[in-house]
């Protein structure tokens, strides 16, 4: 579904990616983990053309995206964006539109769906993210978690083949993280191809089919969560996990319990000198 081949990218003289290879099969959920600044967000943004790259290529659902930003690339990006939805860390809901209009705008303008049909579809999507009662509100009237769930519904309204989540819970209050992760987990359960950049190790362990560890612009290790969290082969993976996790193997029970969410555990696992 999504193939990244030998992706290289520099920015302002800095080498961001050396050569990244990653394949995401249909129905698979891949979690990108790694320290801040390791390139997780940038990699996601390269997939749907919000960032350009310098070498290698990306194939999404048969559409090949080459380096640069010429007209061929723009055409490829346009096709890819039709197939791939994206959810941002800062939600990026449209503040001047209601929840309903946030969701129906793109289907109407891009796909030409009649308003009534788009609205009906929006109602179903809001039900799916448990927000039917918020349909006529404006974004700033919603909590962060609610906004992010609307953003997910907005992306789903385009009926994407795959979803990209760019640290979807990083801007949320800890008590709001669970509701958003639950919606994402449900999507993955329904078979949505998903790539998620996240700091939620418990969630990655629970939901992802595979976990990719990024460090300094390279994928240092890819594998099933069990393998990555219990038996990491790379020293850099171990170092990273040691920093963010108290224990290696989180249990499924901890995911359901909001108090055990890694937002807390991550900070409390920092060495005293850093705290």
């Amino acid at each position, binding site marked *: 579904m999504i193939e990244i081949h030998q992706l290289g990218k520099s920015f302002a003289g800095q080498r961001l990616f050396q050569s990244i290879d990653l394949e995401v099969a249909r129905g698979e959920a891949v979690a990108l983990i790694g320290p801040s600044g390791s390139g997780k967000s940038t990699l996601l943004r390269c997939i*749907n*053309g*919000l960032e350009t790259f310098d070498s290698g290529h990306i194939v999404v659902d048969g559409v090949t995206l080459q380096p640069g930003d010429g007209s061929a690339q723009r055409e490829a990006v*346009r096709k890819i*964006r*039709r197939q*791939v*939805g*994206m959810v*941002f860390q*800062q939600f*990026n*809901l*449209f*503040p*001047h539109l209601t929840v309903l209009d946030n969701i129906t*705008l*793109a289907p109407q*303008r*891009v*796909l030409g769906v009649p308003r009534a049909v788009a609205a009906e579809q929006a109602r179903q999507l809001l039900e799916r993210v448990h927000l039917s009662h918020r349909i006529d509100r*404006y974004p*700033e*009237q919603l909590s962060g978690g609610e906004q992010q769930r609307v*953003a997910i519904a*907005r*992306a789903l309204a*385009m009926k994407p083949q795959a979803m990209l989540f760019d640290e979807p819970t990083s801007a949320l209050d800890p008590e709001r993280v669970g509701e958003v992760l639950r919606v994402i987990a449900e999507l993955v359960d329904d078979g949505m191809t998903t790539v998620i950049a996240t700091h939620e190790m418990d969630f990655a362990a629970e939901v992802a089919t595979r976990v990719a560890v990024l460090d300094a612009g390279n994928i240092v290790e890819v594998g099933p969560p069990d393998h990555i969290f219990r038996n990491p082969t790379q020293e850099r993976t171990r170092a990273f996990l040691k920093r963010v996790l108290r224990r290696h193997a989180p249990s499924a029970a901890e995911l359901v319990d909001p108090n055990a969410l890694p937002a807390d555990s991550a900070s409390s696992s920092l060495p005293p000198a850093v705290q």
Partner: protein
Amino acid sequence: MGQASGRRWTALLRILWVALAALLFGSAARAETSTLDQIKQRGTLRWGADREGGAPYVFPDPATPDRSIGFEVDLAAALARELGVKAEMAQNAWDALIPALERGDFDLALNGIEVTPVRQQRVLFSRPYYVYAEQLVVRSDEQRINGMADLKGKKVGTLSGAVAQAMLEQIGGVEVKTYAGQGEPYQDLALRRIDAVLMDVPIAAYYAKPNAKLRYVGEAVGEGLYAIALRKNDLALQQAVDGALERLLRSGELKRIYEKWDLWDARQDKLLAALPAATAATGPASAPATAPAVSKAGTATLEQSRAAPLISFMPTLLRGAGVTLLISTTSMVLAIVLGLVLALMRAYGSRPLRGLATGYIEVYRGTPLLIQLFILYYGLPNLGLTLTSLVAAWLGLGMNYAAYEAEIYRAGLSAVPRGQLEAALSLGMTRAQGLRRIVLPQAFRIALPGITNDFIALFKDSSLVSIIALVELTKAYNMLASSTLRFFELGIVVAVMYFAMSYPLSLLARRLERSLQGGRR
């Protein structure tokens, strides 16, 4: 005679202030030492005139523009010499010469001021120093106009506030186009924007006579007198000035000055005829301001307008307000649309487009609106493009304000987070759709207070277009006030009219802001 001041808006402020000062303090307060004594002590005669009024009265020397020349400069010098002092000119907008005189800015006003009953109520006039008349001028190939009687239904240009304007209005059915400057009416005549020009003989002699495209029609009509205006209580100065003028007339020096400027004609013999038979000093009672041949048509109109109730000025003022409203709203629409295009070019365009937009904005912001209007209206005809005054005003104001709108939009655009456009793009929208549906609505809400502000500023700046022969509210005020000298009451009326138009606009904008904001509450 009128004035070519491109500074009417500052003149207006000044007029209001002067009128207020005159009202509050009166002119009698300064009678302690007579002006004549002050002149002698000072050793200079300060005379007020507007060098922008134009040739041949007082105007910048083409060779050294800092220096003023003109027949009135020569006259003032001779006059000062007769009084045993030196002449010193004080620049003042022609419209405001009398209020400034009353305020004490100078000793006397000497600048083609026609003797009219209205003015006689306000100032003391010296013996007349010139007998003027109005000369009708048409294009050389003009067939239809052979005299004043043929002017009905024609467009005729003249100076704002001059006696000729009143004469034209007296005829009835004449479309009178008034100008602030003296050269412009003849230029418009040559450009076929108007059909004829009626102005004082000295002006015609200087501007129209040498122009091969124009010709005189018949004899000059409607004789009147130029005299020196003095403060009401300066009787001693009046006596001295009259004595000096008499000596200049008798010695033939005045005639030589006029001959130098090609202004001497048979009419001037009346100046000599009006001199007293004896050489006895001319008393104030025999002030020759009541001398013959003041244009009857003009004075009748002026006298009526002076006594008229304020309501009688309303049609003129309302018409002016209508023009103001029309120009400001159409210009604002142009400014908003063009400004948006410029802002988008600057924010999202390719490099050449960005450069073009930046250049436009910098040039339009960096040059005065007045110059832009002059170029559009008086300059473009040189390139074969003759715009009507309404179109020139619309383009001038609209294109100027577009530069400011563009900057306001740019601030609005850059205040919308990048993530907004990225979200739109990631949903499959094109860049254009994202801008139109997502970024612009948010930018507009941020920019709205600035846009409102600019509209109100444009609304008031619209008074500038009076320099391209449009009678909007300020111009209407100027015309009425300078002919009736009712600067104060008319000023208040006009200020109220401006406010009555701009305040609802503020309210409307505030409501719009609230409703845009309210959508999010």
